[in-house]
C-alpha cells in the first residue's frame, strides 16, 4: 500500500463512520470484559438493531477507557457511562443525544478525564482494536509510510532524538541515542527490533492495555524503528498471562501483513520488516532485556552482564534494539507531528506523557496518561480523586516492586524521571500504588521484597540470597522479633544488593526498603524497640524467646 492508497482508505473509513449520528463505544479491554462488557455490547447492538437504528448509531468495541474501577465503562458520544449492565441498554438508547441517566453518567469534564493528555492512549477507547481500518482512519500507518518514502533512516532517528523521548520501560534511557547506536552497529546484515511487552510489575497493566486497545500503534512504531536502525525482523515478547493482548496483537500483525504494511517491500519500498510474537512464561526477570533475549533464544531466562549491550550484541549476538511497548507507541505521533511537537510537552528533561496504572487506596483506579511534570498531588488527589472513605494519605509507591514509597511532604514534586529518582523511587514502567494510613510501611516493604525474592532468577548471589535474607529480616521485624543489629544488617544488605547485583531486578530490589527506611524509619523502630505496629497491621509474636528457639 502506498501512502496515497493509505490516505484514501483513511478518508473512506472516516466517511463511513461519519455517516453515523451516534457512536457508542464499549470498552472490550480485559478489565471491562471481565465485568461483562461483551454482554453490554451485545445488548446495545440488539437494542439498536431492534429499533432500526443501525444506520444512525454504531456500537463498537473499543479499548480501554481508563476508569477501570467503574467498569463496564462505555462512552455514548462524549459522555461516559459507568457500571453498565445489559439491562441498561434500552435506557441508554432511549436517551441518545441526551444526557445519560444520572446513575450511569460520568462527565467527560471530571478531572479524571479532563486532566489527562493522551498521546500513547489517544486511540484507546476510540478505535476498534480488531479492525485495521479503524486504526487507519485515525491516521494509522501514515507515519510509517511517510518515513519510508520521505525520510532517511538518519532523519527518522533525528526526529526521535529531537523529541526527547526516553525509554518508558523504566530506566529512561534516551530513545534516540539507543536507536542511533543500533543503527551504527555492524550486524553483518542482521539486526533485530524487540518490543518488550513482558509487563510484570504487580498492579501494572499499561502495556497490556495498549496492546489490547491499539495493537497497530505498537506494530507501526516497531516497523519505523526497524527502518531507522536497519533491522528487518522484529519480536514482540508478551507474557502468556495476556491472552487477549496476544490474540489482538496476532490479529493485527496478520491484518498489517495483508495490507502490505508488514512483510516484504512495505509500501512499495525495498524495506522488509516482519514481526513474530514470543510468549513469556511469567518470569518477572524476563522483562530484563538480556534475560528476555535469552528467553527468545530458547534458553533459561536469565540476565547476563552488560556490556556488551544489546545494541552491540543482542539477540543471537546481533545488534538489537529493544524498547518497551509504550516507547514504541509514542513513535508514530512523533514522526507524524514532529519531534519538536513532542518535546514541547512535559518538563525539561522528561518529555511527553506517561501512562500510569493508578491503584491502591485511591478513589479512581485505572489507567491514566498525564504530561510529565504534573505533580504527584495532581495525580493522586485530582485525577485519582483522593483517598476513599475519608482516609488519610500516607504514601504513594511508584515504579513497581523496584520502586520506592514517596511520603506526603513530597506530593508536590513533579512526576519526572529525575525527581522520582531524587526521592529514592523510580518512574519504572508506571505502576502507582496509593497507600492510606492503614498501611504498615514495613509490611509494604516486606510485600515487595517477597515479590523480588520469589522472582529473582537465582543467577547472581546478591539478588538470590540477599533478597531472601532481607525478606527474612523484614518478616522478623513485622513479627516483633528483630533487634537493632537486624536493622543494621538490613541496611547493609540493601547497600550490598543494590551495588553488586547483576541486573536491574536485584539492583533495585532494595528500593522499597531503603525508601521506607528513609521516610518511615520511626515505623521500623516502633516494630523493633516498641514491638508495636503503628498502623495496627502486623501481629507481634507474643513470646519472642520461644519463637527464636
Amino acid at each position, binding site marked *: 500500500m502506498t501512502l496515497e492508497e493509505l490516505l484514501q482508505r483513511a478518508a473512506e473509513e472516516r466517511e463511513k463512520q461519519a455517516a453515523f449520528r451516534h457512536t457508542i463505544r464499549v470498552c472490550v479491554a480485559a478489565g471491562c470484559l471481565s465485568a461483562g462488557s461483551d454482554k453490554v455490547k451485545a445488548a446495545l447492538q440488539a437494542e439498536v438493531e431492534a429499533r432500526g437504528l443501525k444506520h444512525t448509531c454504531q456500537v463498537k468495541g473499543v479499548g480501554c477507557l481508563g476508569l477501570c474501577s467503574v467498569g463496564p465503562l462505555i462512552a455514548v458520544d462524549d459522555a461516559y457511562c459507568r457500571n453498565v449492565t445489559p439491562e441498561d441498554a434500552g435506557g441508554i438508547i432511549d436517551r441518545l443525544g441526551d444526557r445519560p441517566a444520572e446513575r450511569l453518567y460520568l462527565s467527560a469534564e471530571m478531572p479524571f478525564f479532563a486532566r489527562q493528555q493522551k498521546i500513547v492512549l489517544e486511540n484507546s477507547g476510540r478505535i476498534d482494536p480488531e479492525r485495521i481500518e479503524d486504526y487507519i482512519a485515525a491516521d494509522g500507518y501514515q507515519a510509517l509510510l511517510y518515513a519510508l518514502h520521505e525520510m532517511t533512516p538518519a532523519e527518522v532517528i533525528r526526529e526521535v532524538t529531537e523529541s526527547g523521548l526516553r525509554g518508558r520501560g523504566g530506566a529512561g534511557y534516551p530513545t534516540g541515542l539507543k536507536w542511533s547506536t543500533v543503527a551504527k552497529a555492524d550486524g553483518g546484515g542482521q539486526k533485530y527490533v524487540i518490543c518488550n511487552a513482558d509487563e510484570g510489575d504487580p498492579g501494572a497493566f499499561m502495556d497490556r492495555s495498549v496492546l489490547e486497545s491499539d495493537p497497530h500503534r505498537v506494530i507501526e512504531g516497531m516497523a519505523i524503528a526497524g527502518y531507522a536502525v536497519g533491522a528487518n525482523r522484529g519480536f514482540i515478547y508478551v507474557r502468556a498471562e495476556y491472552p487477549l493482548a496476544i490474540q489482538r496483537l496476532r490479529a493485527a500483525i496478520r491484518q498489517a501483513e495483508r495490507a502490505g504494511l508488514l512483510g516484504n517491500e512495505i509500501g512499495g519500498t525495498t524495506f522488509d520488516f516482519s514481526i513474530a510474537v514470543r510468549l513469556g512464561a511469567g518470569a518477572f526477570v524476563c522483562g530484563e532485556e538480556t534475560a528476555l533475549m535469552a528467553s527468545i533464544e530458547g534458553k533459561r531466562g536469565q540476565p547476563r552482564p552488560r556490556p556488551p549491550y544489546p545494541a552491540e550484541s543482542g539477540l543471537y549476538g546481533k545488534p538489537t534494539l529493544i524498547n518497551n511497548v509504550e516507547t514504541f507507541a509514542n513513535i508514530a505521533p512523533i514522526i507524524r507531528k514532529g519531534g519538536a511537537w513532542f518535546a514541547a510537552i512535559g518538563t525539561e528533561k522528561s518529555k511527553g506523557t506517561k501512562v500510569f496504572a493508578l491503584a491502591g487506596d485511591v478513589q479512581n483506579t485505572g489507567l491514566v496518561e498525564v504530561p510529565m511534570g504534573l505533580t504527584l498531588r495532581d495525580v493522586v488527589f485530582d485525577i485519582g480523586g483522593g483517598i476513599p472513605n475519608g482516609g488519610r494519605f500516607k504514601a504513594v509507591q511508584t515504579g513497581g516492586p523496584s520502586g520506592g514509597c514517596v511520603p506526603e511532604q513530597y506530593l508536590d514534586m513533579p512526576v519526572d524521571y529525575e525527581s522520582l529518582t531524587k526521592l529514592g523511587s523510580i518512574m519504572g514502567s508506571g505502576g502507582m500504588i496509593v497507600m492510606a494510613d492503614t498501611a504498615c510501611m514495613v509490611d509494604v516493604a516486606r510485600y515487595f521484597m517477597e515479590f523480588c525474592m520469589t522472582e529473582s532468577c537465582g543467577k547472581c548471589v546478591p539478588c*538470590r540470597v540477599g533478597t531472601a535474607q532481607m525478606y527474612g529480616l523484614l518478616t522478623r521485624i513485622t513479627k516483633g522479633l528483630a533487634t537493632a543489629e537486624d536493622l543494621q544488617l538490613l541496611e547493609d544488605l540493601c547497600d550490598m544488593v543494590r551495588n*553488586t547485583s547483576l541486573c536491574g531486578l536485584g539492583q533495585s530490589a532494595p528500593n522499597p526498603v531503603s525508601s521506607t527506611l528513609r521516610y518511615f524509619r520511626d515505623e521500623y523502630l516502633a516494630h523493633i524497640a516498641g514491638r508495636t505496629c503503628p498502623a495496627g497491621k502486623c501481629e507481634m509474636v507474643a513470646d519472642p524467646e520461644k519463637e527464636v528457639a
Partner: protein
Amino acid sequence: MANQNVKIVTLVIDGKDVSAQQGQTIMQVAREAGIYIPYMCHVEGLSNIGACRLCLVEVQGQRRLLPACTTEVAEGMVVTTNNERLRKYRQMIVEMMFAERNHVCAVCVSNGHCELQRVAQKLGVTHVRMPYLHPKLPFDASHERFILDHDRCILCTRCVRVCDEIEGAHTWDVRGRGTESRVIIDLDQPWGTSESCTGCGKCVNVCPTGALAEKGRATAEMTKKRQFLPYLTIMREEDWA
C-alpha cells in the same frame, strides 16, 4: 597463533601500569600481574557468566561495579580491585553463600580443598552474620561413581557449563528461581538414571565445593583435578588448518 596483529592496550590496575592484549578480561590481566581477585563462578577454560559477583571491581568513570571475569580491558582503563568497600561486599557475598545452604565444613568431603572455604579464608570471613536459611535438600547418590550434595552447592553453574561447553552433553541445567534454584540432571531426574550423562566426571572436577564429589570419599578426601580444562580448551581453539 591465530592472530598475528594483536592489539596491545595499557591500563592501570591498583596503581600498577600493565599492558594487555585487547580482548583479555580484567581478571586475566590482573592474574598475569600477580593481583588476586576472588571468584567462584569463574573457571579458566569455561565461558564467564559474572554470577557470583565476587570479582566485582571498580573501574574509573563507571557508575557500577563491573565483574572482572566478563569485563574486557580497554586502553587507559583505571581499575581498583581491592578496597574497603569491595572487601565488605565480598565478605557479605561469601557469608550469603554459606547461609544459603547447609555447609558443614567439619564433615565435608572437600574440607581443606574447598574453594569456598579458601575464599572465605582469604577474605577474612570468620563468621556469618545472617541467619542460615537451612533449606531441606535432597542428596543424590544414585550415580554409580559420583554424588550430588545440594547442601554444599553454591549454584556457580560450573558443572552446567563444563558439561555443555566441553563435554557437549548438556546433562546439567538449573531449575527453579531464587533460593529455590537447583542444579538438575536432565529433566530433574536422579543422576543414576540419566542417559545423557557420559560419566566423564568433568562436572565433579570443576565443582568448587563438596557439592559434586566422587562417591565414597570420606571427610576432607575429595581433591579436584582441573588440569584437563585449559588443555582441552587450547586444543579446541587451535587453528589446525
